[in-house]
């Protein structure tokens, strides 16, 4: 019976709160803790349940609603509570507990049966509030974590994030989402993914973790594949080679940007076992980039003329494969993805 009671307290007071905390928190962020050992699970459960446990305990004793609902029962004195628990413990260790629960000749329930019923209601009421507060704590944790990019400049929040939040958040959340950056201006996540001899680039739409919290795959959108062989051939054939002129004053003869071939289809899944290298960037989305450049040019470049900036997706004007290798009609592109 002692083992049964111990199991009940561990499961009800430590393990279930740990699970309940993770559920609402994971709606906002991916937590680092996945498949834990029993000790880790218990430690995590204790850590997340301390605050809701204390609040639930205060609530069931002092808050008018929590004192009565749910599982309403007549309020008693502290000594009555203690007596009920004492009777239940006697019952738990009695050689023949059934005999102690039998009603008397008049049909009145025994004092042990009444105590058992009272404690059942108390436990259920306390656990209801305890679980609710644990879930609220999980939701608050997730919400606070989501604001990391905006609030990490505040020392108190930064301390909380470093000590409490970040150790519990999956590193992939930081690497494959805009978690680290302020929510405005809006950013998107782009990745260059090297899979064997093939280099792909695209916008990260989603990512998947296995039970141990490791990356199992990545879903890209607007994917392009770098045609390395054609690029090498064009480099060899080009009179000016592929060496970028210093200072950007001369036009690069062969621009790697012309050798990205668009892959049709909305979603491109790459399993992690195929990935040998991942280069992640967090650029502004189109609208934010346009706004940023408009403001930067007006404030810093002093061009003497009013300008307007237009940002267009690469698949609008990307050079088709047949034309790849031609010189760019305009200056060199900004970024040359290193493909080796």
């Amino acid at each position, binding site marked *: 019976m002692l083992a049964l009671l111990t199991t009940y307290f561990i499961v009800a007071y430590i393990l279930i709160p740990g699970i309940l905390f993770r559920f609402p928190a994971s709606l906002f962020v991916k937590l680092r803790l996945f498949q834990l050992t029993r000790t880790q699970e218990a430690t995590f459960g204790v850590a997340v349940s301390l605050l809701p446990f204390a609040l639930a305990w205060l609530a069931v004793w002092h808050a008018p609603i929590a004192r009565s609902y749910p599982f309403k029962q007549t309020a008693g004195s502290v000594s009555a509570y203690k007596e009920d628990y004492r009777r239940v413990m006697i019952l738990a260790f009695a050689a023949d507990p059934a005999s102690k629960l039998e009603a008397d000749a008049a049909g009145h329930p025994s004092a042990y049966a009444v105590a058992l019923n009272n404690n059942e209601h108390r436990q259920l009421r306390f656990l209801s509030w305890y679980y609710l507060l644990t879930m609220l704590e999980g939701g608050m944790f997730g919400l606070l974590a989501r604001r990391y990019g905006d609030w990490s400049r505040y020392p108190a929040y930064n301390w909380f994030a470093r000590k409490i939040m970040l150790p519990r958040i999956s590193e992939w959340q930081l*690497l494959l989402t805009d978690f680290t950056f302020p929510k405005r201006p809006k950013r998107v996540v782009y990745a260059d993914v090297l899979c064997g001899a093939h280099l792909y680039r695209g916008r990260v739409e989603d990512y998947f973790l296995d039970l141990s919290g490791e990356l199992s795959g990545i879903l890209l959108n607007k994917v392009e594949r770098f045609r390395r062989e054609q690029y090498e051939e064009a480099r060899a054939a080009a009179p000016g080679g592929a060496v970028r002129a210093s200072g950007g004053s001369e036009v690069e003869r062969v621009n790697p940007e012309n050798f990205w071939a668009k892959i049709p289809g909305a979603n491109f899944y790459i399993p992690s076992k195929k990935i040998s290298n991942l280069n992640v960037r967090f650029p502004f989305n189109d609208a934010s980039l346009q706004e940023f450049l408009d403001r930067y040019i007006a404030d810093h470049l002093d061009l003497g*003329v009013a300008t307007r900036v237009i940002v267009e997706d690469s698949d609008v004007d990307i050079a088709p494969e047949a034309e790849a290798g031609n010189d760019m009609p305009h200056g060199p592109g900004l970024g040359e993805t290193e493909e080796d």
Partner: protein
Amino acid sequence: MTADLKRLSDTLRRDTPEQSLVRELVSRRSELVASLRDGRTFEMRDMQGRIIRIAPAR
């Protein structure tokens, strides 16, 4: 994986793509000015392959 996620977070924020873009824009300022003066649109690409067009305002 990295144990210190705070350090990872700081590293990710260190050099953002728009900072590279700004550096490129500054280095090619004379080219940009020449294009605008002739009434032409200046074009460049960012690391995502997006085309950025800077045109004289009408």
